[in-house]
């Protein structure tokens, strides 16, 4: 059933292309604003780029997370989904995985532009870099899907989602920025291993919490 749910989300996106395109477009706009707003040299950008990069990804993930749940509000699709013989935890997992995929897709579009416009060189250890990306994205979307599921149930959900999500996600943001800083500056893995471990723990804890608690979130 989980596969069917993920397929539904992906199919909807492949037909409309509204989530990934809007996330990527927003990301590119933010990069342009960074470049124009800071007017800094590439050395100066190197110092701040890990923070700037992940703040941008956090902003665009909110856009995607909100859309991925608000789409269910239309024509009361969520109500129908709940009345279908589907485990509520599977709904969480499907939203988590599809949001993760949407974030990843938009990052694939936005990331080269980030490196190009801000003159930051691509890290050499790209395998580790990909791993950091995957873990961080899983963390943002695990907690994000849970919070978005909650925010979707109330008025002004587009406001409530970032207000709730940003403070909650700070540990992950700090960790991924530290990991990215290590990668950008060619530091040894041992030097930032602890941050990587925090990220993995974060993903596990909030993945399991979301899986267990989503039953209560989605009650009618």
């Amino acid at each position, binding site marked *: 059933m989980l596969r069917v749910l993920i397929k539904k989300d992906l199919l909807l996106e492949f037909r409309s292309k509204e989530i990934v395109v809007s996330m990527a477009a927003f990301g590119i706009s933010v990069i342009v604003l960074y470049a124009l707003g800071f007017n800094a040299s590439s050395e100066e950008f190197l110092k701040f780029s890990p923070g700037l990069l992940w703040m941008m990804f956090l902003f665009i993930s909110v856009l995607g997370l909100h859309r991925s749940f608000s789409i269910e509000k239309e024509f009361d699709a969520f109500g129908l989904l709940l009345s279908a013989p589907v485990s509520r935890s599977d709904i969480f997992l499907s939203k988590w995985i599809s949001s993760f995929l949407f974030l990843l897709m938009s990052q694939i579009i936005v990331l080269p532009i980030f490196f190009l416009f801000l003159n930051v060189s691509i890290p050499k250890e790209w395998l580790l870099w990909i791993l950091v990306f995957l873990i961080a994205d899983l963390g943002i979307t695990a907690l994000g899907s849970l919070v978005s599921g909650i925010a979707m149930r109330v008025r002004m959900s587009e406001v409530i989602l970032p207000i709730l999500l940003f403070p909650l996600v700070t540990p992950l943001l700090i960790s991924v920025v530290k990991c990215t800083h290590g990668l950008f500056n060619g530091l040894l893995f041992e030097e930032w291993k602890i941050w990587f471990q925090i990220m993995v723990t974060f993903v596990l*804890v909030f993945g399991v919490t979301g899986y267990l608690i989503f039953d209560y979130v989605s009650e009618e």
Partner: protein
Amino acid sequence: MGKFHSKSIKLNIFNLQISIPVNKLLFGLIIVMFAFGLYLVLVVTRVDAEQQMAQKIFYFHVPSAWSMFLAYFLVLIAGIQYLRTRAEKWDRFGLASAEVGTLFCVLVLITGPIWATPIWGTPWSWEPRLTTTLILFLIYIGYFMLRQYGGDRKQIARLSAIIGIIAFIDVPFIYFSINLWAERDQVHPQSDMGGQPTDVLGTFLFMLLTFTILLSYMIRYRMHVLELDTKLTELEHGI
């Protein structure tokens, strides 16, 4: 005051029946304890050689932080209990604890910079504990906004119970990561309370007890007001 003062202690002194409501007694006790605490802090305890009078705020700052964490822990308990039992009293307990906890959170955020201004030379430093408190404050701003926009009462209760649980799960992550992040800002006093002289330790423990009693009184009182509020809404809507 209705039910809040309904429990009372009955005394028989010289054949004179005296009935004192427990909560009024508790309120009186808190005032006396605070007055005595102030005396202990300002008169009895020694003035710190290094920090002078600024150190005295420690007797309010730390108990406020303790009360905040205790209150937020109660939000977690209330959240779990609400999801298990669906009894409205747990929702009221959770909300009252969140409100009072946030009040103490604000006190921590005010007293911290007051102390930091003369000692660190700046009101704000991204010191781990103060930063953790600030992030908790922001999370609870979201919690209250969620309650404001939440829709029907049962849904608000359910969703805010979940946020209370998630917030508490997040606390160790926040603290641990900020602690590592701000290693260069480790300027928060890290004193071992066990090694303190009796006047400092005694006053500190007394203030801790006073704040804990105040916290329990405020939560109980707030729960009572919330219950009246619910009843009023029900009457207005003819439920």
